[in-house]
C-alpha cells in the first residue's frame, strides 16, 4: 500500500503560509516557556543525567522490575493484566468493561483521560464497534475526538487547531453559537458537556506516567483534573501503561516530576500529580501492561534508549521541522523527532520517510529531559532504511554514483568543472526549472565560479 510520505504531507501543510507561521510561533512560545522554567534551576542538567541513568538502569532490569511491580500491585488489591500487543490490550479492556458493568438496555459508558497508549492501540474505535460509548475528557482530546482526527501532539493534542476551528466544531457538536470563538465561553461549554459524561460514566480509563515497582502504585500527571474526576466517580478504574513506564522506587519519582512539566509546558509541576495505590472498597482497579513492539525496540542496541521517553513533547516543540509541518504529517501516534525513531520499529516501510524528516540539528537531543540521543538515532535509522532498500531508486543510484566520483580525485575534478561550465552557459530558466530542480523553487543557485579552489591553487601557488 502506498502511504503519503512526510515530504508530501509537509508540503501540503506549508501551502498555507500564515497558518504555518502561526503553528511555528505557537509551539516556539511553548519552547520559550520551557526555557524560562528551566534556566533558573541550577541543577537542571544534573537532573537530566540522573533521570537518564535511572531509566538506563531500569530498562536493563525491566523483567525484574515489572514482576516486582505486579506483585506489589496485586498485594494492594489491583488486578494486573498483560497484553503482548494492541489487539490483546483492546480485548482485555473490553472484557473488563463487559464483566464489571452489567448494564441493561444501554451501552456501557467509558470516560478516558489522556493516554497515548490507547491512541497507539486504536482503542476508541474498537470499543465503539463493541457497543461501548467512549468519551475523551481531556479538552484537547475531546476536540479532536469530535472531529474524528488523531491528536497532532502528545501533550497538546489539538495544537493544530485555532480557536475559530474549535468554535466551529463546538457549534456542530455542542450547539454553541455559530462564530463563537471566545476561549472562555467555549471551555465552559465543554465543561458543562463533560460534567454530564463524568456523572454518568460506568468506567474510567487513565494512562500512567510512572509506575513504581517498590510500591505497586502509579502516578498520573494532568492539568485539567479530568483523570481524578473520572476515576473517583466511576465504579471501575482501568489504567493502561507501556512496559517502559516503570521506575524502581518512590524516591526516584521527584526527579521525573521536576523534569516532566518544565520540559512539557514550562510549569514547575503539573496541576495534578495523582498517586493511585489501591481500589476504594466496593470498587475495582485494573492495570493493563502492554508490550506492543517495545521489547523488540529494547532488543535494538542502537535504539533501546528511545524507551526512556517520558512523553513530555519537548522535542516536538523545539523541532523546527515539526513546527513547520504539523503533527499529522508524521502519520504516527507519536509525531515529531521521538516518533521518527519509534515508528520505524513498528513499520519500517510505512514510516521510512520519517528518519529523513529532520536536518539532524540536534536540538531534540539537547532539550530531551532524559537525554535520548534522538538525532543520532535518526541518522542510524537512515542507514537501516538504506540497507533495507527502502530509499527511492533515483536517490539510491545518485548516492552510489556520487560516492564513486568522490573517491576518484580526477573524475571529481572533471565532473566539477563540467557541472560549473554547464551552470555558467545554460540559461537561468533551465538551471532554475522548478519541476526539475526543487532547490530553485524558493532559492537561487550559487554563482558558478570560473575556477574551483583547486584550479586557483594550481595556478597561483604551485
Amino acid at each position, binding site marked *: 500500500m502506498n502511504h503519503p510520505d512526510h515530504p508530501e504531507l509537509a508540503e501540503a501543510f*506549508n501551502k498555507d503560509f500564515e497558518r504555518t507561521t502561526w503553528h511555528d510561533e505557537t509551539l516556539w512560545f511553548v519552547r520559550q516557556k520551557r526555557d524560562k522554567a528551566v534556566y533558573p534551576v541550577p541543577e537542571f542538567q544534573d537532573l537530566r543525567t540522573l533521570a537518564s541513568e535511572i531509566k538506563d538502569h531500569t530498562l536493563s532490569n525491566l523483567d525484574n522490575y515489572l514482576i516486582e511491580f505486579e506483585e506489589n500491585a496485586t498485594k494492594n488489591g489491583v488486578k494486573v493484566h498483560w497484553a503482548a500487543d494492541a489487539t490483546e490490550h483492546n480485548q482485555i479492556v473490553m472484557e473488563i468493561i463487559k464483566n464489571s458493568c452489567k448494564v441493561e438496555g444501554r451501552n456501557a459508558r467509558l470516560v478516558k483521560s489522556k493516554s497515548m497508549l490507547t491512541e497507539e492501540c486504536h482503542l476508541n474505535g474498537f470499543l465503539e464497534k463493541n457497543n461501548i460509548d467512549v468519551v475523551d475528557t481531556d479538552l484537547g482530546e475531546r476536540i479532536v475526538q469530535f472531529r474524528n482526527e488523531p491528536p497532532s501532539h502528545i501533550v497538546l493534542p489539538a495544537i493544530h487547531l485555532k480557536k475559530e476551528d474549535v468554535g466551529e466544531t463546538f457549534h456542530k457538536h455542542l450547539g454553541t453559537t455559530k462564530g463563537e470563538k471566545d476561549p472562555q465561553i467555549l471551555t465552559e461549554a465543554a465543561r458543562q458537556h463533560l460534567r454530564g459524561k463524568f456523572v454518568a460514566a460506568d468506567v474510567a480509563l487513565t494512562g500512567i506516567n510512572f509506575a513504581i515497582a517498590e510500591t505497586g502504585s502509579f502516578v498520573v500527571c494532568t492539568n485539567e483534573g479530568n483523570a481524578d474526576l473520572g476515576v473517583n466517580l466511576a465504579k471501575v478504574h482501568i489504567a493502561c501503561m507501556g512496559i517502559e513506564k516503570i521506575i524502581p522506587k518512590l524516591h526516584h519519582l521527584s526527579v521525573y516530576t521536576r523534569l516532566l512539566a518544565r520540559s512539557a509546558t514550562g510549569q514547575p509541576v503539573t496541576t495534578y500529580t495523582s498517586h493511585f495505590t489501591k481500589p476504594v472498597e466496593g470498587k475495582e482497579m485494573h492495570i493493563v501492561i502492554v508490550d506492543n513492539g517495545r521489547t523488540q525496540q529494547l532488543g535494538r542496541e542502537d535504539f533501546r534508549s528511545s524507551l526512556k521517553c517520558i512523553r513530555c513533547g519537548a522535542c516536538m516543540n523545539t523541532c*523546527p521541522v515539526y513546527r513547520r509541518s504539523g503533527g499529522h504529517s508524521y502519520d504516527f501516534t507519536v509525531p515529531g523527532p521521538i516518533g521518527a525513531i519509534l515508528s520505524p520499529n513498528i513499520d519500517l516501510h510505512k514510516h521510512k520517510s520519517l528518519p529523513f524528516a529532520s536536518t*539532524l540539528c540536534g*536540538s531534540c537531543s539537547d532539550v530531551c529531559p532524559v537525554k535520548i540521543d534522538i538525532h543520532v538515532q535518526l541518522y542510524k535509522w537512515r542507514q537501516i532504511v538504506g*540497507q533495507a532498500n527502502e530509499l527511492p531508486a533515483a536517490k539510491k543510484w545518485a548516492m552510489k554514483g556520487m560516492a564513486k566520483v*568522490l573517491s576518484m580525485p580526477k573524475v*571529481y575534478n572533471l565532473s566539477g568543472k563540467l557541472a560549473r561550465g554547464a551552470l555558467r552557459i545554460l540559461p537561468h530558466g533551465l538551471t532554475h526549472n522548478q519541476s526539475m530542480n526543487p532547490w530553485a523553487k524558493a532559492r537561487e*543557485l550559487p554563482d558558478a565560479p570560473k575556477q574551483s*579552489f583547486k584550479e586557483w591553487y594550481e595556478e597561483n601557488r604551485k
Partner: protein
Amino acid sequence: MKVALFIPCYVDQFYTNVGVSTLQLLEKLGVEVVFPMKQTCCGQPMANGGCEQDSKGVYEHFVETFSEFDYVVTPSGSCTYHIKKHYDIIEQTPAVQKVRKSIYELVDFIENVLKIEEIPNSFPHKVGLHLSCHGQRGLRQANASEITGVRDGQISKLLRKLNGIELTELERNDECCGFGGMFCVTEEAVSARMGQDRIADHLRNGTKVLTGGDVSCLMHLEGIVKRQNAPIKVMHIAEILNGNQP
C-alpha cells in the same frame, strides 16, 4: 607542526573565495599550510542520505590523503563533525584514529590550537551570525539555548573583537537554517520555509552582513536572500577574519 588544509567539495567548486580566504588567513596567522591536491570530500552527503556503506571508499580516500599531517583544518564545522563522529564504520587503524583527532574546524583551530584570541582587523558593519548546528551542538563550539540562556561561542568571541563591528541580537539565536544536506531538496517545502524564517529574523533585527562557520548553511541562506533581493551580503567567517570587506 604539519598543517593541511581541507576545502570541502562544494566549497572547492562554488566558493573559491572562501577557500582562498581560509588559506590566506592561516598564513597571516603564521601557519605553514599544505593543500593536498588529491582531496575530494568527507563523505557526509551520502551518509546523511542513508548510504554510509557507499561512503566507505570516500572515507578511506580522505584518511589516505590526510593521515600524514598533525592538523587538518577546514572552514566547515559540519564536515569536521562528520569525520569525528561517523568515521567509526571503517576499521580504526592508527591512521583513521589520527585523522579523526587531527581534524579541526577553522575557528576552533585558531582559538584552541593557535591560542589566538583576537584578530586586529576592522569590520564596521552590522553582522548577523548564523550558528551551524553541527558546529554548535555537534562540536559544542557555542552554547545551546536548550541548555543555557547565555549566548556565547567561539565565533562570536572572535567577531566581537573586530573594530567597529556590531552583532545582531536575534530572536531565535540558534534555530536551524533548514539546509540539512539532501533534506534541502527531499523536504524542499520545510527547508525553504526554515531558511525564509531565519532571513526574516535577520532582516527584522538589522543584519547587513550574514556570516557563519559553515558554507552549506550560508549557500542555502544566500539562495533565499538572492531570490528575495534582500539587502544582506553573505560572507563566510574566514572572509571576514581575513580582512575582506563586503
